[in-house]
């Protein structure tokens, strides 16, 4: 079945973020979303290590070790930016002031539980960083992920088998096959890419899915 590229997925997510939003793009793939935010619109990026108004990577040779994002990559600061300390920054998240947070996932349950920090493998060294704060840290928590693992298992699950990052925190899951909303009754297919169908997605995920593909856009 059709799968869209990670770049197209980033663009798809970007299209859902309204102007004026305060957005945290997590670490890794979600940071791609920044590249597809509509030109000329003002969307304010937060990085939890203490900056609102984060701009793109600097020109070569202009890397500033004092100015990095949560993934410890060099960034810039836009006109209108603000710096603050870690307690203030995570207070901003915990206090529900961000509009959107985009995160990766190992698994998302039909109740919106998120597992993205640990596979629970024995002997693995645990590391959580800001994952749990991010999971509860926005009005809308979007997950960006492939629908299937490399071994073909669905990352959308009835209940997470991996250690949880947050409970009931995910709003919507953007995958390479389709976009799913988390609803009180389980996952609803909001948009199926290409030749994906709700029936086909049910087969891939093994879950009963609600068909919301003809629902009004919000």
């Amino acid at each position: 079945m059709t799968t869209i590229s990670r770049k197209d997925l980033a663009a798809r997510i970007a299209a859902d973020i309204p102007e004026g939003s305060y957005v945290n793009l997590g670490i890794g793939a979600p940071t791609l979303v920044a590249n597809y935010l509509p030109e000329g619109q003002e969307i304010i990026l937060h990085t939890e290590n203490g900056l609102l108004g984060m701009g793109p990577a600097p020109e070569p040779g202009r890397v500033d070790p004092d100015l990095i994002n949560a993934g410890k990559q060099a960034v810039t600061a836009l006109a209108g930016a603000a710096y603050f300390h870690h307690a203030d920054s995570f207070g901003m998240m915990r206090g529900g002031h961000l509009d959107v947070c985009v995160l990766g996932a190992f698994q998302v349950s039909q109740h919106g539980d998120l597992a993205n920090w640990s596979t629970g493998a024995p002997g693995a060294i645990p590391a959580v960083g800001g994952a749990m704060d991010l999971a509860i840290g926005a009005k809308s928590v979007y997950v960006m992920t492939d629908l299937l693992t490399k071994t073909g298992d669905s990352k959308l699950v009835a209940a997470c088998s991996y250690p949880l990052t947050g409970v009931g925190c995910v709003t919507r899951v953007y995958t390479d096959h389709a976009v799913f909303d988390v609803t009180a009754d389980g996952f609803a297919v909001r948009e199926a890419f290409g030749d994906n169908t709700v029936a086909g997605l049910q087969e891939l995920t093994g879950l009963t899915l609600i068909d919301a593909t003809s629902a009004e856009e919000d």
Partner: protein
Amino acid sequence: MIDKTVADVATAVAGIPDGATVMIGGFGRAGQPVELIDALIEQGAGDLTIVNNNAGNGDVGLAALLARKRVRKIICSFPRQVDSWVFDGLYRAGEIELELVPQGNLAERIRAAGAGIGAFFTPTGVGTQLAEGKEHRTIDGREYALEYPIRADFALIGALKADRWGNVVYRETARNFGPVMASAATTTIVQVDEIVPLGSIDPETVITPGIFVDRVVAVGERRWLDGGAFVGGVDLEGEPLQDAGTEGTR
């Protein structure tokens, strides 16, 4: 006259005893008190509990302190990194204790220590392994876990400049854990590029007031700055770029 400045980093870290809890600021290279950590390695204190966001990178700084078996326990949010082999080895060998704390709870627990808060209910981590065994409570329909302050005997902080009263200004995202750690330690030690005359820092722009600071030491301007202006020419660790033609000394 109040003068919290000390002559060198060895003096700055003097008196840190075996068994101390030491907070170390910084997130990545930003705000990392590189020279103070090196001085602590030199100084010799052991059996330390370290509070930091990470658990050391490569073979320098905090990782070097760990490699010398000087750290009994580390409290951090993200020990595992691509180059955290020193910590990884000690942890797997059972030679270091780890208290893993979500980053925002870490910052807030440190703030609580500085602000005299006995404990607080946080939503972060609820329903996860990291809140297991903690007291839970539903308040206004949301579930929270109770978290306690993290205090330290010493804090090592990296900043941009300070005056002799210990008023501190940071630079960009190097601010990170500095202000909360400075407030949560009995003795707070700050390294800065430059010590500036009293009165030259606008009181509106002081981020860590001197009340939280005990010792200040100037370590010289960082390589990517010149007279306070950003000049670049370095990588993320502050090392000169290969093609930059600079001398490559630290």
